[in-house]
């Protein structure tokens, strides 16, 4: 897809009984990510998610998407992000792909949170993102395929969509 495309392809469960899901594509920029997350708030209830699951998904997606904007692509470079989320019974599975540079060492960063019981001037102002991601997801994987980064994560959901 062209990097400036901002289309959104919504696909609810089709006639063949596919799991309810949706797809989005948007430019890798902080404003576009913000707009995508706002749109996501409208889409996730259709997959049967309720608060606080929507909030949890939003935190994880915000961190992964902003990470792409800030680190995968060079500053000022144009690029795109594709996102697909699918409801699978008691899980939400999301796949994010981008055409930016690979993760350092071809792996996802470990979580680590600097100490917070320290003097005010020593408090951490960063390093929260991967910590939040790894605290909240049930599964997380990374692959580099055909020049793209593909990150997939799963979140446990409280109840099946049919009962939601």
């Amino acid at each position: 897809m062209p990097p400036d495309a901002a289309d959104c392809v919504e696909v609810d469960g089709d006639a063949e009984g596919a799991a309810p899901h949706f797809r989005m594509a948007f430019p890798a920029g902080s404003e576009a990510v913000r707009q995508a997350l706002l749109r996501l708030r409208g889409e996730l209830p259709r997959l049967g998610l309720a608060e606080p699951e929507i909030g949890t998904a939003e935190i994880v997606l915000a961190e992964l998407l902003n990470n792409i904007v800030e680190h995968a692509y060079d500053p000022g470079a144009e690029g795109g992000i594709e996102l697909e989320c699918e409801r699978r019974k008691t899980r939400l599975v999301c796949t994010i792909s981008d055409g930016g540079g690979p993760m350092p060492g071809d792996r996802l960063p470990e979580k680590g949170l600097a100490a917070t019981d320290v003097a005010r001037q020593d408090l951490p102002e960063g390093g929260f993102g991967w910590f939040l991601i790894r605290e909240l997801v049930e599964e997380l994987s990374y692959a580099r395929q055909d020049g793209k980064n593909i990150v997939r994560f799963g979140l446990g959901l409280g109840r099946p969509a049919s009962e939601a």
Partner: protein
Amino acid sequence: MKLESTEQPFGLLVTVGDSRIDASVAIQFKDRMRELTAGTSGRILLDLSKVDFVDSSGLGAIVAALKQLEADQTLELVALSPTVSKVFRLTRMDKVFPIHETLQQASGSCADAS
């Protein structure tokens, strides 16, 4: 980034008018907080009742806003949404900032920042 401050009997009240403190406004937030809090003393209450989302960049900016205060000042947070509350709890920043459920509660208490 909409931030407004008013002098109150209990200290300075800073109200966030936006619904998100995220990567796209984090630097603005930090700079605007510096402007609003410069030359003040005592408690600063940050009213987050209109904010429904804070990401890691926004959290970093709130921590930065604390670090740029005078040593005897406190930065206290008021009216966190469930999602915002979760971000503070998971990162243990709920132990760093005094957190109040309502402005009324905050204005009545003299929070211990320790």
